[in-house]
């Protein structure tokens, strides 16, 4: 069995930051493995460990060279090898919306021919939450979004999942394989990479491909969506903010809380 996992490096923005054109100035950004993808990687590795057949876990990332550090994190946690797609056309492309991303991942998936694709529910920075299902539709795979429990029955070709709905309710659904599942946090407990894992990750295959390598042309990633502005939202806050030292602020807050009847 082969499991393909999408792995994205996301931008984490500092408390204070400045906007530079259509992005946040690099100085205020650190990069990390997308939280939801971390759970997806863990789920794939756990499936691999539990299976009584050979399971290969391959990650796929759209991103420049500096995403390799993040990809190595996934490899250190047990993924077998990685594919990274990037070239000048992608670098110069405007908004990488779910359709554009799905097209690129689809091209890789068509070559890899996985039985199962796991993606994060959403990415922490752009929060589209749609790449996984878009990909499924393009691949002609079945799918399930927001999965927080997964059991595979390989013989029957069925994934039994829980989909986490709003308001503490889960939907129980059987999905035919091959499928794309978008993974919700909490489905498992992501492991820390061991030292050995980190060492091994350095030697694992990380294959870099251009659009052309995966059989796409620049026209394939043209999007009708165009980002036109980025700004800090005008604060709607009318909160009373207590200034001063922590003690002073706490004292003022305590007074308000007492007035509100707390602990009286």
């Amino acid at each position: 069995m082969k499991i393909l996992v999408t792995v994205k490096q996301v931008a984490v923005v500092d408390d204070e930051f400045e906007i530079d054109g259509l992005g946040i100035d690099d100085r205020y950004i650190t990069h990390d493995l997308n939280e939801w993808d971390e759970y997806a990687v863990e789920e794939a590795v756990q499936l691999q460990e539990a299976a009584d057949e050979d399971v290969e876990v391959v990650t796929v990332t759209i991103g420049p060279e500096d995403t390799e550090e993040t990809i190595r994190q996934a490899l250190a946690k047990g993924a077998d090898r990685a594919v990274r797609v990037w070239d000048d056309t992608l670098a110069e492309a405007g908004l990488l919306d779910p359709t554009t991303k799905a097209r690129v991942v689809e091209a890789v998936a068509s070559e890899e021919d996985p039985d199962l694709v796991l993606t994060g529910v959403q990415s922490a920075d752009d929060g589209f939450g749609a790449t996984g299902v878009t990909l499924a539709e393009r691949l002609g795979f079945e799918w399930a979004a927001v999965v927080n429990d997964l059991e595979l029955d390989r013989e029957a070709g069925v994934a039994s999942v829980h989909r986490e709905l709003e308001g503490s309710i889960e939907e129980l659904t059987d999905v035919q394989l091959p499928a794309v599942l978008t993974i919700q946090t909490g489905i498992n407990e992501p492991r820390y990479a061991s030292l050995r894992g980190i060492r091994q990750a350095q030697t694992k295959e990380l294959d870099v491909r251009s659009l052309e390598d995966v059989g796409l042309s620049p026209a394939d990633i043209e999007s009708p969506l165009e980002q036109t502005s980025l700004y800090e939202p005008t604060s709607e806050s009318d909160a009373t903010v207590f200034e001063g030292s922590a003690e002073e602020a706490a004292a003022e807050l305590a007074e308000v809380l007492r007035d509100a009847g707390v602990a009286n």
Partner: protein
Amino acid sequence: MTILSVAEHRRGELRPVSLELLSVGHLVADETDSEHHTVVVGGDVEAFGEKLDREGVDAVHTVDYGEEFNHDVYVQAVSQLADAVDPSLLLMPNTVNGLDYAPAVAGRLDRPLVTDVVDIDYEEGLTVTRELYGSKAETTIDVNAEAAALTVRPGEWPAAEGVNGASVEPFAVDIDESAVRSTVTGFEEVGSGDVDIGDADVLVSVGRGIGEEENLDLAFELADALDATVSASRPLIDNGWLEKDRQVGQSGKVVTPDVYIAIGISGAVQHVAGMKGADTIVAINTDPNAPIFDIADYGIVDDLFDVVPALIEEFGS
């Protein structure tokens, strides 16, 4: 031009977002001089259809197929209706189920999709607004296409009101059963333990800012001093530090205490969905730009490890 919005229901109830979508549809239809249609798929479609006949709706379509949501059915039904109605704008809810079918519908209809939209403008073509980086920034996106699909964030628009008298018409779909490759087998309620955070008058709610499990003691100490109950944001529950019963938010509990004290919680939209109805909201956070301050009544921008002990001191015997 036509606008088409898709209603959502679960276990016999129309979900509030359905009526919010009608407001969005109404506004855009007014702005663009369009017709405004809505559709409900499955369940008690007659009753739902009546409820969807609100001000600004020109037609309600009902698809009497299945009881509960099944994405394979929704994708086929909505695509077929879209083929018939040819809407220039297709509006779907940015909910867990919305995100389970909207991308596939957009893909099938070959239309661009923008998710989690918080504002729409039609002055010069379609421009939508979204949030990025955990609500720290906002962006506008021009949609340069004849027809587009959007998922709309719940809670951003008011529910449509009034009773209308539009036509409520069944729409006959031709569902290819062999393409229905998923089966919903049931539902499960999660978390029915001992704590009922829904009952508490005062909630001390902790988020990822607490850092480590041991530090939760601090929250329980404060809760003791305030005669309050401890609740939390999702990451703490995901980590297994607290029981699922204590999770506030979209996928957790909706709470409406008198006082909600958010400690080290950023205020992500899915968290806010569970607590914005609290009477008084207090936020303690080191980040002055954290979105939680947008809805807070009182705030302290400081380290919780300094503020919370000081608060405990204040209320200590």
